[in-house]
């Protein structure tokens, strides 16, 4: 189980000084500004948001790869602090950068992570065989990962992330660059991981693709401008937005927040502006 409460993260963007002299201008960028969600065991939670909404930053904080400014993250009752390893052992993470070692074979890539998790050789072997069976990568195991296709790379990286049989799985845009066949295979595998036979895992994944969320997720959390703006099942969100189409519902929910803040910010109520953004959003 992963519980995330009110995460905040601010980045300081350093600009270049004029003519190379003087102080650097610095600009604060709020990347995450109040993201909260609870991911249950045996369920798939989808983090849905536009590009730059703060999904990856939030997930990196969950993976303790980034220091949070405020908020709290609990993984199976273990409090996450950045750079600390106790929570990492409970997590399997497939990051955006697959990061396989091209000169090692697929099996060696998987084994390496097993060893880093302190597993012994026999267990690693057994687990690799299991994963190879589930992901259908037996033929790839003895080949060097140099020249693997996107789909093959994703499968190996996923096997590597799951080598230590983690209870919680985080996937950052796992279907990026995958074709239909590979996407379907991944979806099937994730569904299976959710079942009791698959281990009843707690799965969190981020995406900006509607169909994926519709077909796969038990719970959807919509993130916009760094904050959680809505959450619930797909049908709950559709009724909340009073839309029949999930895409329309998403656009409405994700950009509604902006409209409200706009009206609150300026008394003159730039409704036309907000409507324009909304229109743009639905067009996109």
């Amino acid at each position: 189980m992963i519980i995330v409460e009110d995460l905040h993260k601010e980045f300081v963007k350093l600009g270049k000084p004029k003519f190379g002299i003087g102080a650097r201008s610095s600009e604060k960028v709020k990347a995450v500004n109040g993201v909260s969600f609870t991911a249950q065991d045996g369920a798939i939670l989808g983090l849905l948001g536009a590009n730059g909404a703060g999904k990856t930053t939030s997930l990196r904080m969950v993976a303790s790869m980034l220091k949070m400014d405020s908020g709290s993250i609990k993984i199976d009752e273990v409090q996450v602090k950045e750079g600390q390893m106790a929570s990492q052992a409970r997590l399997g993470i497939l990051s955006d950068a697959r990061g396989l070692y091209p000169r090692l074979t697929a099996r060696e890539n998987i084994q390496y992570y097993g060893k880093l998790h302190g597993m012994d050789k026999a267990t690693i072997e057994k687990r690799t065989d299991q994963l190879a069976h589930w992901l259908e990568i037996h033929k790839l195991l003895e080949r060097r990962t140099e020249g693997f296709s996107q789909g093959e790379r994703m499968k190996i990286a996923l096997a590597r992330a799951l080598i230590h049989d983690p209870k919680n799985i985080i996937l950052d845009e796992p279907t990026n660059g995958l074709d239909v066949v590979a996407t379907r295979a991944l979806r099937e595998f994730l569904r299976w991981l959710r079942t009791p036979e698959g281990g009843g895992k707690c799965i969190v994944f981020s995406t900006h693709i509607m169909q994926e969320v519709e077909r796969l997720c038990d719970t959807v959390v919509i993130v916009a401008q760094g904050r959680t703006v809505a959450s619930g099942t797909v049908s709950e969100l559709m009724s909340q937005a009073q839309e029949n189409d999930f895409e329309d519902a998403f656009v409405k929910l994700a950009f509604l927040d902006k409209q409200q803040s706009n009206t609150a910010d300026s008394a003159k109520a730039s409704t036309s502006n907000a409507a324009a953004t909304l229109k743009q959003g639905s067009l996109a």
Partner: protein
Amino acid sequence: MREILAIYWKEISDAMRDRRTLMMVLASSLLLVPVLLFVFSTVMSQVESQAVDRTVMAVNMKDAPGLENYILRQGYQIKQAPADYEEKSRNKELTKPVLLIPEGFENSLAQVKRVELEIAYDTSNRQAEMGLGPLRRLLNGYVQERGGLDLMMRGISPDLLQTITVKERHISRPDERKVTITGMLPMVLIMAIVMGGMFAAIDSTAGERERGSLEPLMMNPVSGLQLAVGKTAAVASVSVLIVILTVSSFFPAQSVIANEALRAEFQFGVKDALAFLVVLLPLAAALSSLQVALSLTCKTFKEANVRNQLLSLTVSFLPLFFILNPGKEPAWLGWVPVMAQTQMMNQVLKGELVSLNSIAIALLVCTGIVIASLSFVSKKMRQVVME
């Protein structure tokens, strides 16, 4: 510990599979010293062969019977130079300077006229240039003999011409081996260390960042220190392998030395090899850890490559100090890495005993560098991912 070993073996097998770099590094470490020694020894032999070769090439020797007689008395042979000696010397067919005797040389001498002898050689023809010295000495000998005889004829002692003689006295210790070109061997070895470990260091840090594999790696429950130790140890092992290969290439190198004097000078035994290793292993560890630390701060392979090239350049040029200031070795040099090792290796080559004191100082300095680099790398390892 198990994690460190896992990291170590992964880095080693990764480095060993990087064929292109590996081949380049191995070839250069195995071939560099033998080739260098072969070239230098051949040049030395050429110099010596000019000194040993007792022939004089001359044009118009028939006009100087006195000189001919003198040259023959000194045990030299006289050869008629070919008519196109200029052309032949230019295209290096002729490897000796040519003595040109003017018409009526002997007659002019008899009439006490001032006469000129000429030596023709091409300055770009190195071998011919080397024969110049011996020929000049020979001719000077004749000039002196002539002058002496002329004085005696007039009843003056020829000793008056040379009341002062200059002698050389050698004060070097008899057990001290002469070091000439072998003085460059320490430089070659240190270069081998920095070149050998460089690619492994870059690949395991900046390369890992560029490939995007560092971030997933840091998501494993391993500490920065474990990663730092494992990676540095792997890079150091590669460097050490290069050192061992280069040092062992000294043995076959001895057989290709084409010069007796140099072969006598360069007597490299197993004992010397071991002494070299004792001196170089801590340095290899220190330089590797520096390379890892340096590369970790770079985002791309290219950037890290440039920085490491600078380090390599600095490190390889440090030993030039000894070539510029031969024999001048202030005590503080023992505390400067690379310099201290060069100094100790020179001592080994000269057949001197390296003091335990200086070994201990060098070890201390190297350990300090390793500890500093490791702590930097272990802290930085997580920071660079969070950037």
